[in-house]
């Protein structure tokens, strides 16, 4: 693999992640897989890059007080358990030779679903704006059935008094998916926090970023311990490209409106989903493939 190619795609994905305010794992992992990096290595190495990309964001939110540490702690604990399960599932799928299939199908379903929702929302906002209706950001105020669950805990910073169960369930799920697919999961976590838990907008992004940083650090270590497929040089190239690109992306993001950004991001997400769908449906160039199980005397 070419060093400049890696820094280049790290930079390009970093630009997009800065532009849209997402971690970029869901773009970077597929890009690496499509450019020939074995999927175990791609997934395990991108976790390091996502941690790096989210760190500067999390730090700046922390300085502004935009993080609910209490809520983040619960999410991190739950996602650590999820990540352990995810890494175990990862090793199992790899051993039986179905990892590639699982990654493709998961990306297709997850990105297809999230992308469609985002697209509908963005198009609806764009149409309303065009027809001159004043659009106000929805204020999540009403209680859902989740607020009736037991074991309620008060999260002061978020001004929430909710059951801990949905918090933990979301954490475990994000941890599991993140470890399996090499994504931070911010694009699932933010909507989940906003729509399911009603976390206020001023702390949702910061809390999500902190959770992503912590979870990706845990996942990187777990992957290094179990699958040993973290490529530190690959990860470092991506980190450098990604963090620099993100700064330019964030600067460019100021020239676009929020709903335009969301429509573009939805297109991007759907594009990746379609790309995975195509690889599943199209006949492969060679139906046979090979893999190394163990390297005897590899040194």
């Amino acid at each position, binding site marked *: 693999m070419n060093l400049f190619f890696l820094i280049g795609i790290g930079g390009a994905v970093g630009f997009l992640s800065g532009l849209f305010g997402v971690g970029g794992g869901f773009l970077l992992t597929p890009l690496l897989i499509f450019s020939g990096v074995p999927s175990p290595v791609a997934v395990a190495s991108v976790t*390091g*890059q996502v*941690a*790096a*990309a*989210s*760190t*500067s*964001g999390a*730090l*700046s939110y922390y300085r502004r007080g935009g993080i609910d540490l209490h809520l983040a702690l619960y999410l991190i604990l739950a996602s650590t358990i999820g990540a352990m399960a995810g890494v175990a599932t990862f090793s199992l799928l790899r051993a039986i*030779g*179905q990892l*590639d*299939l699982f990654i493709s*199908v998961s990306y297709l379903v997850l990105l297809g679903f999230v992308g469609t929702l985002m697209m509908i929302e963005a198009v609806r906002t764009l149409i309303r704006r065009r027809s001159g209706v004043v659009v106000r950001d929805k204020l999540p105020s009403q209680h859902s059935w989740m607020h009736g669950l037991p074991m309620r805990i008060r999260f002061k910073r978020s001004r929430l008094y909710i059951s801990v169960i949905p918090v933990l369930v979301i954490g475990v799920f994000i941890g599991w998916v993140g470890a399996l697919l090499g994504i931070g999961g911010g694009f699932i976590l933010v909507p989940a926090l906003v729509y399911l838990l009603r976390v206020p907008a001023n702390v949702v992004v910061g809390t999500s970023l902190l959770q992503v*940083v912590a979870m*990706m*650090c845990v996942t*990187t*270590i*777990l*992957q*290094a*311990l179990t699958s*040993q497929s*973290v490529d*530190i*040089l690959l*990860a*470092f190239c991506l*980190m*450098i490209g990604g*963090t*620099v690109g*993100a*700064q330019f992306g964030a600067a460019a993001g100021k020239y676009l409106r929020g709903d335009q950004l969301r429509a573009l991001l939805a297109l991007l997400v759907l594009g990746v989903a379609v790309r995975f769908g195509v690889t*599943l*449906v*199209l*006949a*492969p160039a*060679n*139906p*046979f*493939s*090979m*893999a*190394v*199980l*163990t*390297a*005897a*005397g*590899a*040194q």
Partner: protein
Amino acid sequence: MKRLVAGLAALGMMATPAVAEKLASTVSSATVQITSSFDGAVLSLFGSIESSNPDTVAAGPYNVVVVVTGPLQDRVTRLKTNTWGIWTNTDQVTFKQFPSFYTVLASGKLDSIAAPGVIEAEKLMPIEQAEAASTDPNPFRAFEFGTELVRLMTAQGHFAVQENAVRFLTDTAYVAQVNLPSDVANGPFLAHTYVFKDKQVVAEHSDGFTVRKTGFENFVFVASRQQPLLYGLVCVVLALGTGWLAGVVFRR
């Protein structure tokens, strides 16, 4: 059994002219070092065919076949089939202790160098290596998946049969060249040389060489295998440090 027959045949050939050959051979370098700029290497294998009896002179014409085998690995070949419109891996055959590198170098067409049966008896061809390594009890499946495995390995430059890669300098001295690809496996390699006369093996010799990573590449690889926790922690520190630094540098 086959091997024994071939050996007996070779003995018979040697007995009649009362000339016994012996082979002296060597490799151009005993260790191939993989540095960060490694993009493959060409090794030369030299040899000289001599008579073991000082009163006679080794007389050809000789032919030489060199088989270079890399470190052994367990490999799996998988077959994708279409189920409900989706291509998935549905079948696989595991090959235990299969060479990660295998090249047959010869001084001419193999079927004109060796008598029928000799190549098979020595298991010289890549497909015979695959059949021997297969764990599948069904020989047809072993052959089918083995053929595909050999094809995939050949496409990646790890397997080859080159029938013009051994060049005779004199009637009894030769040089063979083997190409190691940039992603060659690390570990011990074996070069086994067969000398053919009148389509039978008259002498054999083995030479070893080692391919190994050196410097930073080796350090990183060894660390990831022997100190995985430390390796992961370093990766995390690197990530947090890079992220923090980017935040500091770009903050105005």
